[in-house]
């Protein structure tokens, strides 16, 4: 109660108000999505409409919700953000100039505030479809209908996924025909510009039988306060095909990021997905691998390096539905300052998935006494002849390692940097694509310079 100078009666007849009700809904909570009714197919408009209703109906997950344990869905501040408005010409030019990326690539797309501003597709092999989402709605309706957001979101972000579906209009759709191999990556930049702007980028990759494709999504902020990216990637690996996918999130320090991946690996498919979380005050990734075909393999990799008050929230599911499949997850977080990481991973092996190999490892390197890492690994095995392991570790840099490097004349700061680089190295090595890696390592080193 605040003190007041005016005389007040001893027993006030005015009822003392309870804690204020939650504020009136605003921002993304109420701003209805704008749909392109003229060119999008009817089924899509219907799903979009239904998703908007579902979004409004679904409650914001509570902190008591198991899938949000140690985290908080309110870190995604829907009320504070609005759908990104079209960028100015100047902003667009600035974003294009800043979209420096791979030297060698098969195609490049740049989106600013969910609007495609550049595409280079000359080097794409014949028969490959690689188009803007809006274009795909017109020309690839059947494929979208078959693969776009088909999986139920079970790791906690169903409400945010519904919002994504209601708003999505940007991102790329890639269909690689049978036996076509695209060796060099397709690179996509998603820029968010302006105060409290929200983007909803989508990535859909469908690889035909024995096809090969590699895609890198970058999520970045240009200027402006806040910023929110609610991104979804659907990766469908056809029989014997290979997909390599990296999501590199480098949004501004006051931005918020959500990235939801659904991976389907069919017979002998090999899907490698990589989450690189470097930016945003709060970032959450949810990655589901459905190993639906015999002999399928999914490598799930992640590195993050939270500093200051950054929070990195990671949820994963390795879902084995067929025999002789392999999933191998390796997540590494190097934490600084008062940052936090939460990893929650589950391996499920259903009755038919005999001879499963499933591995899950999360390692956290604490570079500060105030940083905090939480790991929640889980297993549910219902088949025989299964090899499963999960492990999580957290700890500071070993004093003896540090002493050894310093005893060779390397300064404390440089020794710590070397150790952190070494800590993250095996994840990077497993990702393998050296072109992409060189760029990533440079970005990680930049962040490391800020961290120490």
């Amino acid at each position: 109660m605040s003190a007041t100078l005016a005389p007040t009666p001893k027993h006030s007849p005015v009822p003392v108000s309870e804690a204020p009700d939650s504020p009136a809904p605003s921002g993304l909570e109420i701003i209805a999505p704008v749909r392109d009714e003229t060119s999008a197919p009817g089924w899509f408009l219907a799903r979009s409409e239904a998703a908007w209703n579902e979004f409004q109906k679904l409650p914001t997950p509570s902190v008591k919700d198991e899938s949000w344990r140690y985290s908080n869905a309110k870190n995604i501040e829907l009320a504070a953000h609005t759908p990104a408005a079209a960028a100015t010409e100047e902003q667009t030019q600035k974003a294009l100039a800043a979209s420096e990326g791979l030297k060698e690539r098969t195609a490049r797309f740049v989106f600013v505030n969910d609007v495609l501003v550049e595409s280079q597709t000359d080097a794409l092999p014949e028969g490959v479809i690689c188009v803007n989402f809006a274009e795909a709605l017109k020309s690839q309706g059947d494929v979208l209908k078959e693969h776009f957001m088909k999986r139920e979101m079970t790791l906690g972000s169903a409400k945010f996924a519904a919002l994504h579906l209601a708003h999505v209009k940007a991102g790329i759709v890639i269909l690689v025909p049978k036996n076509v191999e695209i060796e060099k990556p397709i690179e996509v930049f998603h820029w968010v510009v302006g105060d409290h702007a929200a983007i909803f980028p989508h990535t859909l990759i469908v690889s035909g039988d024995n096809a090969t494709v590699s895609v890198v999504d970058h999520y970045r902020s240009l200027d402006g306060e806040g910023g929110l990216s609610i991104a979804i990637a659907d990766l469908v690996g056809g029989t014997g095909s290979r997909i390599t996918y990296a999501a590199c999130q480098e949004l501004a320090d006051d931005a918020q990021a959500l990235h939801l991946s659904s991976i389907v690996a069919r017979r002998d498919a090999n899907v490698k997905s990589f989450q690189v979380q470097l930016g945003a005050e709060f970032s959450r990734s949810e990655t589901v691998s459905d190993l639906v075909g015999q002999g399928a393999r999914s490598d799930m990799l992640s590195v993050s390096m939270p500093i200051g008050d950054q929070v990195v929230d990671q949820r994963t599911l390795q879902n084995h539905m067929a025999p002789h499949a392999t999933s191998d997850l390796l997540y590494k977080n190097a934490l600084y300052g008062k940052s936090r990481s939460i990893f929650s991973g589950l391996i499920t092996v259903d009755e038919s998935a005999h001879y499963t190999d499933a591995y899950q490892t999360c390692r956290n390197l604490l570079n500060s006494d105030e940083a905090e890492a939480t790991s929640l690994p889980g297993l549910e095995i219902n088949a025989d002849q299964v090899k499963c392991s999960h492990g999580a570790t957290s700890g500071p840099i070993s004093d003896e390692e540090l002493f050894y490097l310093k005893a060779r004349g390397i300064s404390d700061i440089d020794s710590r940097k070397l150790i952190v680089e070494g800590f993250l190295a095996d994840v990077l090595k497993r990702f393998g694509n050296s072109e992409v890696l060189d760029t990533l390592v440079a970005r990680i080193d930049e962040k490391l310079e800020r961290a120490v």
Partner: protein
Amino acid sequence: MSLEIKALHAQIPGREILKGLNLTINPGEVHAIMGPNGSGKSTLSKVLCGHEDYEVTSGEVLLDGENILDMAVDARSRAGLFLAFQYPHEIPGVSNANFLRAALKARLPKGEDIDAIKFYKQLYTRMDQLEMDRSFTSRSVNEGFSGGEKKRNEILQLMMLEPKYAILDETDSGLDIDALKVVSRGVNAMRSEDRGFLVITHYQRLLNYIQPDIVHVMIDGQIVHTGGKELALKLEEKGYDWVKEELLAAA
């Protein structure tokens, strides 16, 4: 010019280990320290490098006249002191080549980098001398190395960093005779008029291959006896009891 250790006292909480140790190593000299287990030999090497587990309570260590006890671990190394570790640590994910480059770069003025071509030429020459496979450059520092490989790697670092004073802490432990010969050859190649060595060992065997100029006996945190290389043979043959008896008689 010398590495001068003067009346050095050092302890871990509650226990003094070095109890007034005196030793002077001139450039060009190879000193050996022998002594029974627990006499403080390895502690001496760690104290000289600045390991934080040990507290120096009094005394001085002068490296060419400069007191290094106030210097940080890395600064002592850059000043010219090198320790070949008894148990070299593993650094996962950091390749040997990157590690050595970082160590050499730390010796350059800020902003300068080493010449990569010269670096690799030098590195390969040294590795050949130590009969190390080229794959060592890309392997993580000491990770999965055998005992012998680790010790070779220590000598490789010695060869690349070219310190003024090198301490070898039980470099012979865990080595078979062939590895011992290779490692010793590497050390001998580094002997020169402007470099001093302190070889800490438990066994006289090493001193057949790295011949010392001066041999010291360390007991209970002090150098209690000093002689020529023949002293090592006497210790091997008779053990340390006679030294202790002499000490008692003198007391």
